[in-house]
């Protein structure tokens, strides 16, 4: 039955979003993610960035476009659930894996916290938790999808900015909407990494939005790792030791943040 599985796409229409952040609350409520103690950093955006307990985040961005009109851009950030997912390729233990509906799910039990995915992800999504030594990210409410329920954020959205449906219909809906909007509106998500299962309708060119890569792609290092090194290590040295050693060999101390293609 696997091959005929229906693929879902979550479409985020930023031109309808009022940043009421109902989705941010609904995500925490459904996944029982605790709130973190935050401070005001001079922006409505809080918490500051995705965290191990914050899987979706509304990014606030003040932007004056080329002909001087001021715009306040809101973008709901979170895992894009790529078809060709760099994180899945890089994950030595198979914790990150593809599932039906196009979801990139994460099996926390077998995650060894090697953080290979955090540097592989072109969208910089997975977050590491020091105490549990695991990584965390949005799983598109995979357990709800199996029950025939939409993701929690989709249910919470009152302006209809977030909708979810069968892949082809949602892509068509996105292009129809962009055509109706005109101007610089653009569909984002179907043209790279094999197409993402979370797509945007953006009112400005992608380069304008912070933390949104213009041409995301799977980093060479990951392709190397997957095709050349991964088979040896898993056979030879056993998952845990091997991954940590390999990780150190290739990356060096994990703080070094490798420059991703397309990132300004």
């Amino acid at each position: 039955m696997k091959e005929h599985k229906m693929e879902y796409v979550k479409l985020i229409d930023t031109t309808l979003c009022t940043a009421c952040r109902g989705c941010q609350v609904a995500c925490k409520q459904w996944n029982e993610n605790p709130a973190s103690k935050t401070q005001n950093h001079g922006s409505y955006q809080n918490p500051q960035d995705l965290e191990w307990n914050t899987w979706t985040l509304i990014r606030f961005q003040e932007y004056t476009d080329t002909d001087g009109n001021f715009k306040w851009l809101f973008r709901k950030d979170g895992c894009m659930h790529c078809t060709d997912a760099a994180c899945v390729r890089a994950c030595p233990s198979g914790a990150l894996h593809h599932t039906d509906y196009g979801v990139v799910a994460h099996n926390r039990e077998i995650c060894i916290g090697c953080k290979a995915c955090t540097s592989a992800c072109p969208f910089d999504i997975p977050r590491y938790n020091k105490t549990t030594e695991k990584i965390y990210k949005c799983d598109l409410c995979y357990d709800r999808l199996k029950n025939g329920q939409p993701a929690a954020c989709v249910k919470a959205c009152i302006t209809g900015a977030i909708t979810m449906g069968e892949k082809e219909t949602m892509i068509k809906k996105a292009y129809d909407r962009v055509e109706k909007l005109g101007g610089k509106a653009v569909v984002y998500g179907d043209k790279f990494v094999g197409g993402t299962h979370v797509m945007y309708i953006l009112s400005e060119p992608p380069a304008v939005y912070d933390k949104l890569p213009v041409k995301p792609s799977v980093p060479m290092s990951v392709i190397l790792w997957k095709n050349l090194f991964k088979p040896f290590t898993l056979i030879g040295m056993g998952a845990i030791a091997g991954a940590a050693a390999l990780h150190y060999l290739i990356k060096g101390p994990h703080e070094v943040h490798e420059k991703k293609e397309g990132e300004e």
Partner: protein
Amino acid sequence: MTNHYIDLKNADVILIMGSNAAEHHPMAFKWILRAKEKGAQIIHVDPRYTRTSARCDYHVPLRSGTDIAFLGGMINYIASNDKFFHDYVVNYTNAPFLVNPDFQFNDGLFSGYNPEKRKYDKATWTFQMDANGVPMKDFTLQDPRCVFQLMKQHYSRYTLDKVSSITGVSKENLLKVYEAYASTGVPDKAGTECYALGWTHHTTGSQIIRTMSMIQLLLGNMGIAGGGVNALRGEPNVQGSTDHCILYGNLPGYLKMLNTSCPDLKTYLEHYTPKCNDPQSANFYINYPKFTVSFLKAMYGDAATPENEFGYNWLPKLDDGKHYSLMHLFDKMYEGKIKGLFSYGTDPAVSSPNSGKVRKALEKLDFLVSANIFDNETCSFWHGPGVDPTQVKTECFLLPAAATMEKEGSQSNSGRWVQWKYKAVNPPEDALAIGDIQIRIMDTIKALYAKEGGPNAESILNLKWDYKDGKGNFDALKVAKQINGYWLADSTYEDKLTGATKDFKKGELVPSFGMLRDDGTTSCGNWIMSGSFDEKGLNKMAKREKDDPTGLGLYPNWAYCWPVNRRIIYNRASCDVNGKPYNPKRKILAWTGDKWVGDVPDGPWPPQADKEKGKYPFIMKQDGVGSLFGPGMVEGPFPEHYEPLEGPLAKNPLSNQLINPTIEIFKSELDTVANASEKFPYVCTTYSCTEHWCSGALTRWQAWLLEMQPELYVEIGEQLARDLRIGNADWVHVSSARGRVKCRAMVTKRFVPFKVEGKTVHQVGLPFNYGWLYPEDGSDSTNFLTPTVGDANTFCPEYKAFMVNVERA
């Protein structure tokens, strides 16, 4: 609201001014977006670019406190470019009325002003009457003394240049908004306005709303689907608490509170029952005596008899011309005159203006009885910052209350829909519903007076107080029926229009306030709610049917809508004088020759073309027509722009009258004011945020909401921040002549400097959702900054425009 939330979808142009709908009324904004999807234009006029502006067609920034200048300019534009809806203005407003020749306006003041008392003598604000006492009219609107010409002349001073210089709005933006909105002045277009605290929080708040009402009358937008003036109010049952008048100046149903100029019921009814000699004016308040006597019967039951004027003199009387609003209350408390305070479900220590004075006043109380679902800064004032508990003598009671889903009862949304709520669960442990708490407190007090007596004890002992169910608990249904009203004797009601008669037996419920009596044979706790039950006892508030025959979102069988389930007020003005709908595509009402079909008509009488039985559409107004000339307001029949009490300008660009001449000035040593002073050079406004609600007393206790808005911040424009060398997220002090708060700086492009009278004026803004109790490091009330001053008619405080200084902390 004259209309309601769902009706917003029917509008062609929506002006959001004085409101931040997307953030504070998300469900209202959903209906606004529905209108936008159908091609409506949505305009946001606000000092600050907000999340509402992000989803509107365009945003126009204006300086806080200059709304009347902006709208006055629009009236000037509409009148001088002939954009008004002739047929509507001539027939349905008092534009043609001729005004008393002695009525004058010059240099910012109307005739009859008394500077010492800061009050007007309104003798000259009257119409010229013909022989049989009916106002004289010139339907051609040419007579220089007619209201229309006087209005046109009054607002001719609001030229584009002058308005632009006052408001800081560019002339292009002014014209852009005026043209867009004035385009609805035609029969087949509907324009509506959404406002909230952005308009009411001013010394000229009531007049701002009146200016918009005048615009809606000029454009024929009042009483039509997708029209009206819509207040998006802030609290779940603020409409209900206002209707039942927990307000010093009114008895339930907006009846006037007794005062010393009416020593007995007869004089009181004489004084407050309006008279009109024009047979075509329904002048519905002619029934005022029926509503008053029925209320007294509902309050005192059998003890209220014609002999004791139904208990008129047991009720307290206000001194004529004296006021007892929230600011007066804390003023008196600060003087030590108020010994005891009951504070139910509210947090004045954060939400009232001039928190410094309020918190000093609370310390002078002998006792404070609070009832809430969470603790807040008022209940625990005695261990607030800078307060030494060992010096505070106040006995404090903190009574645990039930939340809304833990009690049965009804709630009115601001679209006048009264919806019945069922009780899902019992409140936790000792908590009780406020109704239960009030019943137990009054029972105990009544017992004390029964035993020991006391001054005017009859008023307490004669109070009808049998609102308990079998188990001795508060019975909401019993009170709701008492509010609706009962027949106290077998009676026959004769409908004067149709001649039909109907018999009712003693003890049956009164099905509509039209049937109330002033001879004591009916009781009614609140006349506007009469009809929420039919005579057999069907609770219309609990109806849940979904039919919507007109398709315009009226939903006549969902819940009850006061008055008499009429969903859009003044709806007869949506038809021409013969009862034919102006806009057949958006038909809410039509006259079929013998009856109205559609929404419940605003008065059953035929359209006014029927000279014999027909009536004008604005039945609650004395003359039956909308008021362009409004003598009811204390500061003048035409709204005039005055600067805020504390503004950036030393002189009012329009006249030598700087501030509203009739506002009350409070004089305690903590009520300092610094107008046009260099010490406080920046205009400041306050507002809420999506994640919190009002004083934050409910939402600050919720982790996921607090995570998104953890601390107090001041939003400050980039240019001003550069001048003051303030970096984003720096700690800053915002100070006014009254107090100071410490908060984060949020440097933003969303505040832009204004060009006002040739000078650059900067504006900043702060939310008012934080208090010291929780979270500990979340900073304290923004209202340490705000002045104790309010609107001249309603005493609603001026939170939206005052002056501050901002420095690095």
